[in-house]
C-alpha cells in the first residue's frame, strides 16, 4: 500500500520533466542520428563523404588541434592560478575566486566580441604596442589561430582552475611540512609531493576543457579565419548555407558521439577520485 503511494508521487514529480526532455531533447537528437543514416534509405554515404573529402578531414584535424592546444595552454596557465588561489587564506581565496566564477557566467557572445575589439588591427592591444614603440606595424592577432586560442583559453580556464584547485586543497598540509623537515627545498617538495598529488585534478580539468573545446562555435566563427573552421562551424555552414541536412546530421552525430564518449571516460576515470568540482 505504502509502496504504491510513493510510486504515484514519483510519477507526478518525474513524469513532466522526463516527458519534456524526451520530446524536446531526446527526440530531436535521435532524429539527428536517424537522419544521418536514412535519407530516406539506409546509407553511410554521408559518413564516407566526411572521411573521403580532404577539406572535411582537415576540419576534423583543425578541431582536434585547436582543442589540444587550448587544453595545453589552459593547463599551463590554470595550474599557477589554482596554486596561487590554494596558497591564500580561505577569506582571500573566496574573494579572488570571484575573478574565476563571475566571467564564467557572463555572456559568451559579449566576451568574444570584446576579444575582437581588443585584438583587431586597430584594436587596443595593437594601438598600445604601437604607442609604446614595441612594434612598428600592427600585428595580426585575430582571424587566425592565435586569436581563436587566446579567446578559447580565456573562456575555458575556469574548467581547469576549479578541479586543480580542489585537488590542491585536498592535499593535507602536513605532507609539505614533512617533506620540508626531511630536508627537501620548496621546489623539490612541489615536484615530488604537490604536483603528483594534484595531477588527477589536472587530468580532470584537461578532459573537461578538451570536451567543451571540441564543440566551440562562436569563437572560431568570430575570431578565426577560413582556416580555423571547426566541426561546429562546418555543421552550421552545411545547414544554413548549403542546406545539406543529412551531411550536417552525420557531422553533428560524430561530434555528439565523440563528446559523450569522452564524457563517459571523464566520469569513469575521475569521478570518485576527486572532490566535486563545485560547478553545476
Amino acid at each position, binding site marked *: 500500500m505504502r509502496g504504491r503511494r510513493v510510486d504515484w508521487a514519483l510519477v507526478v*514529480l518525474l513524469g513532466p*520533466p522526463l516527458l519534456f526532455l524526451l520530446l*524536446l531533447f531526446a527526440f530531436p537528437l535521435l532524429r539527428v542520428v536517424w537522419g544521418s543514416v536514412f535519407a530516406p534509405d539506409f546509407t553511410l554515404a554521408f559518413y564516407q563523404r566526411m572521411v573521403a573529402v580532404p577539406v572535411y578531414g582537415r576540419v576534423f584535424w583543425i578541431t582536434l588541434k585547436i582543442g589540444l592546444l587550448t587544453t595545453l595552454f589552459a593547463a599551463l596557465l590554470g595550474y599557477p592560478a589554482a596554486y*596561487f588561489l590554494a596558497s591564500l587564506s580561505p577569506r582571500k581565496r573566496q574573494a579572488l575566486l570571484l575573478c574565476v566564477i563571475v566571467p564564467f557566467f557572463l555572456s559568451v557572445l559579449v566576451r568574444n566580441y570584446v576579444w575582437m575589439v581588443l585584438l583587431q588591427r*586597430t584594436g587596443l592591444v595593437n594601438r598600445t604596442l604601437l604607442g609604446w614603440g614595441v612594434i612598428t606595424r600592427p600585428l595580426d592577432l585575430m582571424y587566425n589561430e592565435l586569436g581563436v586560442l587566446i579567446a578559447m583559453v*580565456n573562456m575555458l580556464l575556469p574548467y581547469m582552475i576549479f578541479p586543480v584547485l580542489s585537488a590542491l586543497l585536498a592535499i593535507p598540509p602536513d605532507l609539505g611540512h614533512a617533506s620540508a623537515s626531511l630536508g627537501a627545498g620548496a621546489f623539490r617538495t612541489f615536484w615530488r609531493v604537490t604536483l603528483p598529488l594534484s595531477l588527477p585534478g589536472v587530468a580532470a580539468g584537461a578532459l573537461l576543457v578538451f570536451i567543451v573545446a571540441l564543440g566551440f562555435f562562436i569563437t572560431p566563427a568570430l575570431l578565426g579565419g577560413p582556416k580555423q573552421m571547426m566541426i561546429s562551424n562546418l555543421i552550421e555552414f552545411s545547414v544554413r548555407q548549403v542546406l545539406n541536412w543529412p551531411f550536417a546530421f552525420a557531422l553533428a552525430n560524430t561530434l555528439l558521439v565523440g563528446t559523450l564518449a569522452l564524457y563517459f571516460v571523464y566520469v569513469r576515470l575521475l569521478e570518485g577520485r576527486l572532490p566535486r568540482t563545485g560547478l553545476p
Partner: protein
Amino acid sequence: MKVAVGVLGALVLAFLVVPVLSVIPMSFSSSMVFELIPSEPGFTQYRRFFASPEWMVALGRSVQVALGTTVLATALGTLAALGLSRIRSRWRPVLEAALISSRIVPSIVFAVAAYFVFSQVGLVGTILGLVLAHSVLAFPFVVVLVSTALAGFDRSLEEASRSLGAGPVRTFFRVTFPQIRLAVFGGALFAFNVSFDEVVVTLFISGVRSKTLPVKVWDAILYEITPILPAISTLIIAASVLLLTPLLLYRRRS
C-alpha cells in the same frame, strides 16, 4: 618560487576579468572609433540603443523569452529534483545524468536537432519555440541547485506533516518549499541568465521573425561593427551581474 607562482597566478586571474571589463569604459565613448578612455565621455551610445525601436523590440523579446524560460525551467527542474530526492536505488545516478545531459551535449548539435524538428511543427521563429529550447538548456541548473538544497533537508519533517493529516500538496507548500525556497529562487535567476545570454541555439530557431538581443548583437558584429555594441555589451554584463549577485551572496552565507 612562491613569489613567481603568485605573480603568474595573479596575472592569469587578471587575464580572466580585465578584458571583459575593458568594454565598460569603451561604452561611454561618443566617437566612432573605439577608445579605452573616451575623449568625450557620455551616454550617447546608450541613448542610441534605447531610442532604437529595432533594438528595443529585440530586448523586449529577449526578456519575454527569458521570463517564460524562468517559469518553465524552474517548475520542471524543481519537480525533477523533488522526484530525484525520493529515489534511493542504483538508478538514481542514471536518472541524474539523464536530467542534466543537455549541459553536456554541444550546443550546435542541439541547435541543429531543434531547428530540424521545430521547423516541421512550426515552432521556428516563435516565442514558444524559444522558451521550450531555452528551458531544455536552463533546467539542469535548477535540478542541481534544488537537489543540493534537498540533500540537506530532513525528510522526517514531511512524514510528521503527513501524519498530522496534511495532504501532499499542503505538506509541500508548508513544509518542503520553505526549506528549498532560496535554491528555487537561485535556480530561477540562473534560468533567466541562461536564456537571456543564449545565442547558438537561438541563432538557428529564432528565424528572421523573432531575433533576440544576442542574435541581433551577433548580426551587428558580423555585418556592421557599430560603436553601439560596447554599450549593449555593458548592459548584458550588468544584467548577468545583477542576476548572479544574490546567488553569490547566498553561497557565501551557507
